[in-house]
């Protein structure tokens, strides 16, 4: 497992250059990320010399853990208020900037998130290959208030991946705002991290009220998850190119 902040400069987002680029990706009120259609993209001044890299990331997890809500939270769209089974496969594009420490390079990560409903995955055979083919990373989701979803993570890991497949793996626990009722203990999480050498992150897909969104409070929620995800994706690229040399 890599140490957070070893590849990406985590403080860079607060710098002038970092916040300038981040502003290109945010809504006018600066509280959440903007959505871009397939024909448009962030307008980043070319003199900043930002390279764009594209990654494909799939979300996996038991039905109802919050895959679709997590995608909504990460991309800045409204988090659904009720649980609706995702019919089929949905993809969302996400842009996030990062500064690579040892290269001093600024990179714009363009992440394609693939989210499929569990029932659709089981019923139709074309959906899982559509998600898995060429995937760069997989986010395994569980819910803090559903121990069954946490226990399923090892099964998902063995079913969907191998240790040497070069796919970046991260576990993400949702509904962390309900951690007072959590059925998953800190020890469970430490054990999972140690046994599988995979980081376990936490997220709460709560829609902020207007008042709470001050000083980037809305983006602040997703910054740690996105930074970790980008760092691991970059690290995995470094490892693969190291193997190829």
């Amino acid at each position, binding site marked *: 497992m890599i140490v957070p902040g070893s590849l990406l400069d985590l403080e860079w987002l607060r710098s002038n250059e970092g916040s300038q680029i981040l502003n290109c990706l945010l809504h006018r009120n600066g509280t959440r990320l903007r959505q871009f*259609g397939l*024909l448009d993209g962030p307008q980043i001044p070319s003199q900043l010399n930002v390279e764009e890299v594209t990654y494909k990331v799939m979300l996996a997890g038991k039905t109802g853990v919050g895959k679709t809500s997590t995608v909504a939270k990460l991309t800045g769209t409204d988090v659904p208020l009720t649980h*609706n089974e995702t*019919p*089929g496969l*949905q*993809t969302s594009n996400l842009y996030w900037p990062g500064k690579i420490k040892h290269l001093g390079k600024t990179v714009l990560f363009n992440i394609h998130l693939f989210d499929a409903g569990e029932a659709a995955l089981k019923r*139709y055979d074309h959906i899982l290959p559509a998600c898995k083919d060429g995937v760069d990373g997989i986010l395994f989701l569980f819910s803090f208030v559903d121990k069954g979803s946490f226990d399923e993570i090892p099964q998902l890991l063995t079913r969907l991946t191998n240790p040497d497949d070069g796919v970046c793996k991260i576990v993400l626990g949702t509904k962390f705002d309900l951690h007072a009722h959590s059925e998953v203990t800190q020890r469970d999480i430490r054990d999972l991290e140690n046994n599988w050498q995979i980081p376990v992150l936490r997220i709460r897909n709560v829609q902020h009220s207007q008042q709470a969104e001050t000083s980037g409070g809305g983006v602040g929620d997703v910054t740690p998850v996105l930074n970790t995800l980008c760092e691991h994706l970059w690290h995995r690229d470094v490892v693969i190119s190291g193997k190829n040399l």
Partner: protein
Amino acid sequence: MAAYLLCLTAGGGIPIFSRSHGDVKPLPFPVIGSLNAVHMFAANHGATLKSTTTSDAKIVWRDFHDSLSLIVITGNDQANDCHLNRLLENVWSAMVMLFGQDELMNIKNLERFKRDIKVCFQLLDHLLEQSVLSTFSDVTQAVDILLTPDNGALQNFLDAFVEAAGSTYGCLTVGGRVAVATHKWWSLSATELVLLGVLIPLLTPCTSRDIPIYLPQGSPTVPHRLLTFQVMRGVEVCVICGPTPSVADLHNEVVRFWRPAVEVLKAAYQVIPRYVPSTLTLDQNILGFLLVNNETSRCLNSVCVHGKDGKEEIVSLPKRREILRSFYKRVVGTYMSSPIEGTETGPAEFSHTATDTYTVCEGHKCYALSSPPHQLFVLYTSAIPTFAMRSITNKTLHAFTKDKSFCI
């Protein structure tokens, strides 16, 4: 208006699901049981219980293919039963669309069915919302469209892209309404057009989707894939495909075919919320209108005809939609007929075919004009002289139909 939708097995009356809309408590099990029991009692005696009206509610029963029973309970809006029957027909078709007819007609494992049918709930809940919806397709059985300044150019872009995707069914939606569609898309049945038109804007906003769907009339047992792509904010391109191409394959094609269309798409998006190009002028007294073409199953409507006309305090936008909707439900089935089953019985009681009807209320006036294949329902301010409504409605219809570039 509050509403309940119940689904039970036809044979045993076992509850499958219960959806509701509005600030109401869930129906207790004994009530569901007795609603089903009275229906089965009639069936055992060779009769079919179709509907009943209480002092403030209406209940309609319908059986589908000896497999499932659907019951809908809503407030009594004095409309003909045919509209609630239409709702149940749409509910059944929605279930076929997302789940497939085979398994709906032969339920093998009840517990698994109850779990898997949840994929339809989002669409069913939306259909139940009825009067609070901003669209009219569920009641007119015609898909909501909008007119853009350059439909011809958009049509060319769409036809080229759909062909490249290896399909013949495709459409472009702007602001949740269909702007242009391929010839084969328009040849889908009215129910299929309406449900697809409702489903696409309803789903969680995202860049692209690959959803297995069944076409209730065209292909109820063999699934196809509905692929949607968000090209710009509020604009989606949709294609119905077979097993290929994959969503990832089409991403690049979407960019290649639609990048030249960016300016046209932006101009199309500007039409919202009027839904009609600014080149078309409409009478100052019109608060909203609903124009239905029963042959092509298209429905053009708007409640924001003159932008911020300052009349929102008198009649707010949601109120205008509610008035138009209930005016439609009162007129169609009583004075005028439409392709919706059951709407012929009311008008058949008259010795002549009604072409115009109107109502005058305290804060507004409504006029309905039938000129086959079109039916136009207009909501006017109360300032308009009653005798003038007929000619202005005629002029308005003429303005829409004379321009050949407007495909209504």
